[in-house]
């Protein structure tokens, strides 16, 4: 982001329109790393399944992180797993997004106090775009999280840095 800072501080019509197109493409074709951690992964699977159908939003699970645009951290992240998740995140090509799904990924959830092996929040390791609360969040909540992520992408700009 922001590589054209100096030349076009205000942006112009062409840039803005191309930007809209690019943002539209990015937000309507979010490919997900098919990666499940714990209980929330089951709800994530239910969201991809027929009843809730993630595919409506253009989300398809890709097994390889290289093909993916966003990752759903669906469940408890342990210390042993955290380093692997970081690596997984680093393998994804930019631009990449993260949805933290469920209390465990947000902040440690029910394991915050005595979980000697639980990472209290995935944001200690990788940056998170959208937090979805719940233990586990219902599929509707995850869909809402996705819509929020789309909204975020829609307002991204090549020129202006988003806060």
């Amino acid at each position, binding site marked *: 982001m922001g590589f054209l800072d100096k030349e076009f501080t205000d942006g112009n019509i062409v840039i803005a329109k191309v930007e809209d197109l690019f943002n539209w493409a990015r937000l309507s074709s979010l490919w997900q790393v098919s990666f499940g951690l714990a209980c929330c992964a089951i709800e994530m699977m239910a969201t991809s399944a027929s009843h809730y159908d993630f595919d409506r939003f253009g989300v398809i699970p890709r097994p390889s992180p290289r093909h993916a645009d966003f990752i759903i951290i669906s469940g408890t992240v342990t*210390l042993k797993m955290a*380093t692997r998740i970081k690596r997984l995140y680093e393998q994804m090509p930019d631009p990449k997004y993260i949805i933290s799904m469920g209390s465990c990924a947000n902040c440690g959830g029910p394991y915050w106090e005595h979980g*000697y092996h639980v990472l*209290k929040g995935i944001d200690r390791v990788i940056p998170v775009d959208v937090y979805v609360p719940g233990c586990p969040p219902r599929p509707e909540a995850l869909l809402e999280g996705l819509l929020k992520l789309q909204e975020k992408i829609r307002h991204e700009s090549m020129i202006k840095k988003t806060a």
Partner: protein
Amino acid sequence: MKKAEEIFQLLKDNFPASNLELKTDQPTEAIIIASPLEIDKICFFLHDAPELLFDDLMNLSGVDEPKAGVLTVYYHLGSTKIKHKITLKVSTDRNKPEVSTVTEVWKSADWHEREAYDLLGIIFLNHPDLRRILMPYDWDAGYPLRKDYENPEFYQGMKVPY
């Protein structure tokens, strides 16, 4: 089907030199207390004796008892053929916790023992592959299920407490 008392009597007869004890003051099942270094022989006997045939190691749990200064291992045995059950218990010194492995008797003991080693630091002698199992291999902060365990502040640069 054999009762705990009968099983205990059989064990007494076959291991006269061992220090065995039957504890029946429990609210539920009776417990046979054995010595930690002989448990493998006793288990072999329990597994093979035709009137016992304990072919199923239902559970193996390690317990930390700092007040008594011991680490305890409970063995819950069952038989799929005769359908009776028995609980064994061995206690070992907390500073030098050594118990004979029963992996030779039941393969299923392998990971249970690794877990007891991982979380409580009980060393199972002659275990084929005694490594940490649940915790990371480079975890050096001790054994989490011990009552005096203190969690480290950082692990590989990640903050551990909330």
